[in-house]
């Protein structure tokens, strides 16, 4: 099986075309031996009796027609063991931290099989991130995939790290791990993540895969798959709850487009391949909880929207696959508010199953809905004020206008190390809502108003 071919007929971008081979399997792993003795790796994209197309992960620099090509007869696998924890690996899975190679307990295909929907357990365990805009308004649950839609120059890294530091399921001390995969981010950004992991001791329970901006783009196509394979292994074989942070999905999609162009495929919207939805789904869908297994995989990816445009194909297709999104706002960032989460376009689809009397608190949904409605109305009124001036507003409208300001200042804004529990978050929500006339609280059941509204609460006590 390890026959070496010297029959490269063409090299184009990241692709090489090999002729006259024995039958080669689709998606097979390929080793390419360069004349200088180094080896590169690649993967079969198209195979037939006449010609085999291989994409080379480390780029085709230095390749010529004299290179030897060996087909390994197996698809790409990640050697896994519990010792992965605490390790820093390259985007192709090689150790970068000077440590020994991983002694594998198992070798797992990185493409990952789809979870049978019938074997899934609907996610419902509330994860407290300590950030009000997430816990209170867009609750994250175990097994969810909730990306951050951000833009360049916005503090998405800080937010991701704050979540990685603070996230926990209330009242549980179950083993918890972070898998971090960097795709095409700068060395500086990577350093920022690494130093924070070291500072907080998180590195011991983390696996890090680094593909930096100057690493080959094609490698980015396997980095997230390696990371998710490691995550699934830790979750389903070692009962851990794994938080996967993938950054930046946009770089991944750029690499996908680059490959598509190299293969001369018919492009879809904005030049991205027509199968980008399916491809992204094969990453995002690897989150979840499986019946009868203790661990879980939760995904918190970072995606920078080109030109802050939420209708760009990358955020758009992502939004159709993920269970919601946290949208970072440049406007709030400019106002100096951290974390600048714009709750209006943000959404957590699994929120309703993760909140309520037994999970957070009975009034959670009502408070959240009321805050949403009031904030949306207040924000609308800002537009009106710009035209007619504040004085033209009715008393009622003025209250809503003030609510929007206070909401941003007190509910959204919090410290980078401030870890608010859910009671604190809901408490702030109630304080703000108490400023509105009680008759306007139409989304809240009267019994919760009696129980939690500061005015009534004070009376009871």
């Amino acid at each position: 099986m390890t026959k070496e071919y010297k029959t490269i007929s063409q090299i184009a971008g990241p692709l090489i075309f090999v002729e006259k081979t024995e039958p080669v399997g689709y998606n097979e792993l390929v080793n390419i031996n360069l004349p200088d003795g180094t080896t590169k790796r690649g993967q079969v994209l198209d195979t037939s009796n006449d010609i085999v197309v291989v994409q080379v992960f480390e780029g085709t620099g230095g390749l010529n027609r004299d290179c030897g090509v060996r087909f390994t007869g197996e698809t790409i696998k990640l050697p896994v063991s519990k010792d992965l924890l605490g390790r820093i690996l390259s985007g192709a899975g090689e150790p970068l931290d000077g440590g020994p190679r991983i002694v594998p307990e198992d070798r797992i295909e990185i493409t990952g099989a789809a979870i049978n929907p019938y074997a899934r357990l609907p996610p419902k365990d509330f994860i407290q991130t300590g950030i009000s805009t997430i816990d209170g308004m867009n609750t994250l649950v175990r097994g969810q995939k909730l990306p951050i839609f951000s833009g360049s120059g916005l503090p998405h890294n800080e937010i991701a790290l704050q979540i990685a530091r603070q996230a926990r399921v209330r009242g549980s001390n179950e083993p918890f791990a972070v898998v971090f995969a960097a795709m095409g981010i700068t060395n500086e950004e990577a350093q920022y993540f690494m130093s924070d992991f070291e500072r907080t001791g998180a590195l011991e329970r983390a696996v890090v895969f680094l593909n930096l901006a100057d690493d080959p783009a094609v490698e980015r196509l396997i980095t997230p798959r390696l990371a998710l394979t490691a995550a699934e292994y830790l979750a389903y074989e070692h009962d851990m709850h794994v938080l996967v942070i993938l950054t930046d999905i946009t770089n991944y999609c750029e690499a996908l487009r680059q490959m598509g162009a190299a293969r001369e495929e018919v492009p879809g919207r904005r030049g991205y391949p027509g199968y980008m939805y399916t491809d992204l789904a094969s990453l995002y869908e690897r989150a979840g909880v499986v019946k009868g297994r203790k661990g879980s995989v939760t995904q918190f990816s970072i995606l920078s929207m080109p030109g802050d445009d939420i209708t760009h194909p990358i955020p758009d297709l992502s939004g159709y696959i993920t269970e919601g999104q946290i949208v970072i706002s440049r406007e709030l960032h400019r106002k100096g508010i951290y974390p600048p989460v714009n709750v209006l376009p943000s959404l957590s689809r699994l929120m309703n199953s993760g909140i309520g009397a037994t999970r957070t608190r009975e009034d959670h949904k009502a408070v959240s809905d009321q805050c949403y409605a009031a904030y949306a109305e207040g924000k609308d009124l800002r537009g009106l004020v710009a035209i007619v001036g504040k004085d033209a507003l009715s008393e009622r409208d003025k209250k809503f206008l003030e609510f929007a300001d206070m909401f941003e200042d007190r509910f959204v804004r919090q410290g980078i190390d401030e870890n608010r529990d859910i009671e604190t978050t809901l408490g702030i929500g109630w304080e703000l809502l108490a400023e509105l006339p009680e008759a306007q609280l139409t989304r809240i059941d009267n019994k919760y108003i009696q129980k939690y509204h500061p005015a009534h609460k004070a009376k009871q006590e």
Partner: protein
Amino acid sequence: MKNKGEIYRISGPVVIITGLNTKMYDVVKVGNEGLMGEVIGIEGDKSTVQVYEETSGVRPGEPVENTGMSLSVELGPGLLESIYDGIQRPLPVLKEKMGDFIKRGVSANGLSREKEWDFVPMIKKGDKLNGGDIIGTVQETKNIEHRILVPPAISGTVSEIKKGKFKVDEVICTLADGKTLTMMQKWPVRKPRPVSKKLTPSTPLITGQRILDGMFPVAKGGTAAIPGPFGSGKTVTQQQLAKWSDTEIVVYIGCGERGNEMADVLYEFPEIKDPKTGRPLMERTVLIANTSNMPVAAREASVYTGITIAEYYRDMGYDVSLMADSTSRWAEAMREISSRLEEMPGEEGYPAYLAARLSEFYERAGKVKALSGKDGSITVIGAVSPPGGDFSEPITQNTLRIVKVFWALDAKLAQRRHFPSINWLNSYSLYTKALGPWYDEHVSPDWVKLRNDAMELLQKESELQEIVQLVGSDALPEDQQLTLEVARMIREYFLQQNAYHEVDTFCPMDKQFKLLKSIMSWGDKAHNALDGGAPIEDIMKLKSKDDLAKVKYEKEFDTALGVILKTMEDEFAKLRGK
């Protein structure tokens, strides 16, 4: 004639085979593992096959075998309560055979061969049978009687008919010419099942959702589309329809959607009770789950699998509703396969036959007289996920040309937590007229006018809102302020509906009528009072107005509404007295 060939080339889900004699849409078994695939193109002695399973590691030269059959589904007792993937493999069986993850090369029968069903014949020896005739019944679930049909192409005289417990593949009836019938039949999914006549839809599908039933109804046998950007509540609306629609059978196709949401449906449906029968909803439901990371070719097939099952129950004389979530994923699967075939792309990379495929699919809906002589219907409700929420994209546009009802989801409404976030100005229904007589008879002769008045008021509101945006609401004349207030009441008290509230999640037609009538009559009274000189501040403060807001959540709706109407009378009388 060879029926064994070999693989020539593999590129993802598209495999080219050689040396095999094939017909279009033949199902072939590809490679050593026998992966299931379907012939979608023939050129010389090479055939192009789309494979329904992962092709990693498959090599050129591996054998290919032709089954000679088109992609078919098994139809018979046991379909209800099932959960299938896109090619009718039961997911619980797959889980048993290959664990928690979908692996490949495993085949599974759509219908269990083990289970026995109690067959009660309705015909006797010597009877003449035609295709589509009912030969007997099986109690499939507590409330659904499964009618065993003669396959459409078969006819003849009965020479033997059995009674008792049988498995689906055991012979229950023999014809004079020696043909045998079982409880199971197979049907190719891409071919519509024949009917004797198509009829015009005339009864509404009652969904218990006020904005749908009240404002934009779909008829039983009609077609509707729900397009909307992500996060605008498409899936929740589809699920509400699957839960509460008053059809006897529901087929729900999760086509290329989220695994966790499918899991939610799989968990929830067995728990929820049908409001009509009190039995678990699952007993009338067939679920097809092909999540976005399952093979793309099977996603393409899932829609056909679903509609064929729906047609089978329609032929028994049932009203069936079919929800496809989402047809955009289906179209994308077509695009993906088309691009692998290097076909000339049409608009936005979609194949040129997109419009034809969509209309063929929606045409399989309709109210019909089945071959058995019974009336049945299929209502198709397709979700569309337009990229960026832009309704001008090809799938939305091609769909709108076909469907009669358009429920336009609006992200803006969703953001302010107005649910269901269906925009009342952009949506339309072309059935309102045809359904008029039904409403006169079953709801109230006032209903159609009431609905039109409410719509007119909402239209007026949107015009007034434009002025308000410029000058503020206080600058409007008082009667227009009141109009705005009544419109707000219609929006918040009537159109908004909480899918997660135990009472509000389902709202019967009668309650919809009373609720809307009360709001409108409050508006009339308020306008009269205003004309009579009552100050608008006093009118706005009336308790009956705030009471109307919450009456939809009351368990004892009629009693609660009665009290409110009484308060309303008193309050307006008092205003007049002043």
